[in-house]
Structures are given as C-alpha cells and as structure tokens.
C-alpha cells in the first residue's frame, strides 16, 4: 500500500473499492427487501468484507472459510472467523462452518446479530453439512442470497474494472513467455510450469483454474464424446506432449484483489497456420468485430448473438454448453451470460448496461480442419465498449 495515494501495488484504491461495493450490496438488499445476508461462498465473503480469497484447493478453502453477515441497516459487515486484520468489519471469533464446532459458533453469532429478524428477511448463499445439522440459519424459509449478489455485482465500479484489467494484463504478460515455449515434444506441464512461475514473478499468486493448454481434435468424431454432440473443452486432463501442427486451445485465469482475468488464445505447435486454419481465425475475427460493432448500452444479449451468427454464415459460433460471452468479476464466469441454454427469450430480455464486463469467447469450427477459439475482455461504457486487456497478439495467426 502506498500511504501517499492509498493505492496498492496495482494502483487500486482498495479502501474505496470495498466501500463502494458494500454500498451497492446494501442498496441491492434494500431494493430486494432483504434485511440481512449470510454468506459462506468465499468470493461472496470477499465481496462483502474484503476478506482475501487464496488459490487453495476446495478442500482447504472450505476449512479456512469465514462467514460474512451483512445487515442492510448496519454500516459494517460482520466476519465470523477468518483473518479480520486490516478489514473494516465487526470481527467475531469462530472457525469454518465446515466443522460442527464452527457451525455452532456461527449459530450463536447469528442469534446475536440477526435475532430480531424472521427467516424470510435473511438470505443465505449456501449451507454446509454442519450448518444444516445446527439448523441455523434455518434451511426452510430462508431467502436465496444469489439474486442479491447477482444484481449487486453485475455492473462494476471503476475500481473493480481496474482490478480486472490489472489481472488481465498480468495474465497476458505471463503468456508471452509461455507462447514461445510451445514446440513439438514439449508437454502441457512445461507450459503450465512456466505460466505459474511467471505470474508469481509478476506479483500474482492466485491462479484460480488449472491452466489449460489443450491440443484439440480436428474432427468432432475424434472425440471425446459429448452430451451436446459438439467439441469437448476444457477437459483439464492428462499431460499431453504436443506434436507439430497441433492446434492448442489456451485458457487461464488469475485474480487481482479477488477479480478474475480470462485469457484465451489458439496456438499452433511448431509451424505457421495453414491457409485453412488462418481462415478459421479470419472468421473468428469477423465474429468479434461484428459483436463489438453492436455492443453498447441498450443492446440485448439476443442482438449480440444474432450479430455473431450473421458473421458466421448463420450458425452460432460458440460451444453449446457454454456461451457466446460471459461476465467476469469475483467469479471467472458470472452474469451477463450471453447465448446460454437459458434460451433466446432470456437473451432478448437482457439489456447490456455501462459497467458490465463481457468476455467474448466465440469458437469457429470447421469439421476436419479444427477450430479457432480466443477470448476478448471488454467493458461496456456509456457509449460503447473498451478493452480491459492489453491487446495481446494472436500469434501465429495474422490479423488482416
């Protein structure tokens, strides 16, 4: 922290970030008629309190998680357990709600802090087994906290956007080094090793997904078999050695102050793209350009889906189990979700607004040739959009 400016190593004013976020959360609670939140999912706890979310396995994250309690009528959130030092919270001793002892401690804090409220006024994002056993908060009758978090987080503050942008740029910088290592005979573990080392050297120790460098099949019939009949990605399995000509789909995500990046590119192992492969990229670029041309406040998700399909000869250029685009923030994929199996009516009803983040991840596939996939992270502005990354190159493909 720089005491002169109050900003952290990434230039983020963390105090303002937290204060504005909490204000949004409490405003959303009031708008939805929710008097209090009980939050157990670590990104939610981090959003409400600033509590750090480390990049641990779920088994450890569960046993280290504190619980946040937010009342709409109180200025400061409560933190049960965890590490409250440096946070503007009412700290309660406690331990994880993944132990019976921790769940009992939580129950007594809840009685003290929320005892005047009825269950329907309290929204909860999830119960652990021990919380279900303790019966507090009650499962029956409690409200669902996810609509509150969803509405509060969907449009980002300037500081939140700065966190995402910082994460994206560091992620991209690390990938510059990784990209030079792809060659026949190298393995996925070699590339992942370099990525994980480089992000740490650049000051980030939170790789939130096992970095993906997946050699892709050329035809869907090459498998794996999928429930959608389309391409399987990302499987995150095995340690393949690359062969010359492999199309490698790359995907990774790190966080800065709990905000995620999302890096996606397609690399070619050991040679330049063939003419047919370059055509995949050209079409992918055309899809991106068409969607970005349409992207501005007031446009619907449906409009963006139609623009993408029109640029791809009428076919939807994305994986059917995912989306044309997703939001990003405290989760690596969050609202807005654009082009999912929620359906066209959902997409047509969803209106983009300033401050929303859109990660475009179209896929252009030609069976027998293969596919091109990459991701573009942009924020909706008052009159259009702006990129949150650093314009990372598409090598070895040529932008024409």
């Amino acid at each position: 922290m720089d005491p002169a400016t109050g900003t952290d190593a990434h230039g983020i004013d963390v105090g303002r970030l937290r204060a504005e976020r909490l204000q949004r959360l409490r405003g959303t609670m009031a708008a939805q008629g929710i008097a209090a939140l009980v939050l157990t999912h670590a990104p939610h706890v981090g959003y409400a309190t600033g509590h750090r979310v480390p990049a641990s396995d779920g088994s450890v994250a569960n046993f280290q998680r504190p619980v946040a309690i937010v009342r709409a009528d109180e200025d400061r959130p409560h933190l049960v357990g965890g590490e409250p030092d440096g946070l503007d919270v009412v700290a309660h001793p406690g331990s994880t709600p993944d132990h019976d002892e921790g769940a009992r401690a939580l129950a007594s804090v809840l009685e003290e802090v929320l005892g005047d409220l009825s269950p329907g006024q309290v929204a909860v994002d999830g119960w652990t087994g021990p919380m279900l056993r303790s019966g507090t908060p009650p499962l029956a009758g409690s409200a669902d906290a996810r609509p509150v978090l969803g509405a509060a987080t969907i449009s980002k503050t300037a500081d939140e956007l700065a966190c995402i942008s910082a994460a994206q740029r560091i992620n991209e910088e690390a990938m510059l080094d990784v990209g030079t290592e792809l060659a026949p005979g190298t393995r996925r573990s070699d590339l992942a090793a370099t990525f994980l080392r480089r992000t740490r050297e650049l000051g980030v120790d939170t790789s939130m997904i096992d970095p993906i460098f997946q050699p892709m099949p050329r035809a869907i019939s090459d498998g794996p078999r999928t429930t959608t009949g389309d391409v399987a990605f990302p499987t995150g399995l095995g340690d393949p050695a690359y062969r010359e000509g492999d199309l490698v789909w790359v995907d990774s995500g790190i966080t800065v102050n709990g905000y995620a990046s999302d890096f996606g590119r397609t690399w070619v192992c050991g040679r330049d793209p063939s003419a047919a492969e370059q055509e995949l990229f050209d079409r992918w670029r055309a899809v991106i350009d068409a969607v970005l041309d349409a992207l501005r406040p007031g446009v619907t998700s449906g409009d963006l889906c139609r623009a993408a399909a029109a640029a791809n000869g009428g076919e939807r250029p994305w994986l059917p189990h995912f989306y044309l685009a997703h939001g990003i923030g405290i989760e690596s994929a969050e609202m807005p979700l654009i082009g999912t199996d929620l359906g066209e009516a959902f997409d047509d009803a969803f209106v983009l607004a300033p401050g929303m983040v859109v990660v475009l991840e179209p896929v252009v596939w030609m069976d027998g040739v293969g596919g091109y996939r990459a991701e573009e992270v942009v924020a909706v502005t008052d009159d259009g959009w702006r990129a949150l990354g650093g314009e990372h190159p598409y090598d070895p493909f040529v932008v024409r």
Partner: protein
Amino acid sequence: MSTPLHVERRDRVLSAMAGADLDVLVLGEQANVVYASGHHRLWTAGTRPHAPTCIVVRRTGATHVLSTWDEGVPDDVPFEHLFGITWNPEVMGAALAAIPGLSDARRLGVDGMTAGFLRAVERLAAGAELVVADELLADARRTKFAAEVDLMRAACGVAAAGLDAVVAALPTPDAAAAAVAVDAMARAGSTKPVGEPLVRTADGSTVVDLGVLVEGYEGGIGRTLGGDPEGTADVHRQALAACRPGTVAPGSGSGVTVEVRGAGLGAERPVVGTLEAGMVLSVTTTAGSHRWRDLVLVADEPRPLLGGDDVDGEG
C-alpha cells in the same frame, strides 16, 4: 486383476448408504464427487457453491455425474449417466428427474445445500426426507485403500521435488523461491496446489511447506532449512512414530505445537478420537518460527509417505 480404485470407493459408499438407509446421495463437494464417482474434472481454486454434481442411487448401484464429455469419467459409468453443464435450472431439473430412483427416494442424502437446490429437491423428490450426509462421506473416506496411499505417496514425491528446487535456489527472496517451487512441482507432475505454497525466511532459517494433488489425492512436505537448534525435528519424528492404531493423535508439548488432520482427497477433518490403521494424517510440528510437516500412514509401524527418516533440515 485387482478391483479399480473407483469401484472400491463406490462400493464403500453404497455400503455406507445401506447402513444409513439412504436411497439416494446428491453430492456437490468436489472431493466427495471424486470419491463416489471417480470423475475428474478441471481443477479450480476455492469454495464452490453447492450444486448437484454426482448422484448415487443405492437401488441401481449407479453413479450419475455432471459432465458434458466422457473423458475423465470411468469406463463403467455409461454415457447415458452423464448430464451436461447447464445454466438453466429447468434443464438441470429435467436431467435429474430422468435419473431412475431419484423421484421415489424416501431418504435422500446431501453434503450441502442452497435455497435453489432445496426448491429443486422439493419438486423432484417431493416425498423424500433430507438427510445430512457429509459425515457419512467423511467416515467412508477416513481409512485409505492401498491405491489411495500410492497416489498420496506420488503426490508427496512431487512436493519433495518442489522442496529440492527451493533448496537449490536459496538464497533468494521468498516469493521467488515460491515461484521456483510451483515451477518444479508442475514439471514433476502436479499443477494443482492443496494450499498456498509457503516459503518464509526469518531469523536465519527458511520454512518451506508445499502441498499438491495427484489424481485428486494430497501430498505434502514441510521443512525448516538452515538449522534446528531446539531439536524440533526430533519432536516431529516422535510425533510421526506415535501415529499407531488405537492411540489418540499425538498432542502438543512444551513450546512445541503438533497439529494433526486427515489427508486424502485434499485436506480432511481434524482427527477426533482414536487412530485407525489405514488413516493418513498430515502431521505438522511447529516450534517458534520452525515447522515440519509430513503425511504418515497410521500402522503398527507408522510409515511417513516419503519414506525413510529424512526429516532433518536440509531435506
């Protein structure tokens, strides 16, 4: 041919379900999902909101798993038992409703809940009594099959490779040493951390504590490099040697803290009660700024998974 590990585990889950009179288990915790189904999917960090990820039906003995593809799913789980990633609660509801044995379940076990999933259960299995089953899974997972111990031993070897790389890199700033460790562990076989890699230099010694997953199973090692004036390594060695069946977990002594928890598909719960043969424990011995950690198999002659007696400072 020996029984595949995922079948051994599934049989143990089915047997536990019979013992608890559970008709169906709906699991969301990643480690429980791997245990019951053998399905491995992309590793992601942190807590996950509860969602139905693996359904075990006692009557049919079948496991049904959330996966859009068949890679990473054991061969004996039919393709028809996969339900794909969806963003649509109605699609998820329809997929679950199609699972034989779910709608007429009398007793349905869960390892976590959300308000949204409660609504789904009330619709899909209207008559079912909800049973909190996280302890049933924890009990099933507590003692390890030989194949599980083998995977944990492999994971310990990966962590040890990370430690060796740190030893070779010192002296260097702590953050740089941690970067060296994750690089070395990735090349040695795992890019999936258990917790954050710890490298902390203070008072002339460097504490290193590393943990990684191999096929979901935890391995780890903690060492203090650069001297052990208090002889804490001896206390640690004694703590490991005390992990015998029928005894209580080794406790703390004067000036020395010994922490013991279960280890398996990642971190497991602190150990309560007496030890059983076949448990694997993560034993951490701390004195001041010094720290040692090993995974040890509980047996009449307790066996540190890294083997040998090499808990001295210089690894």
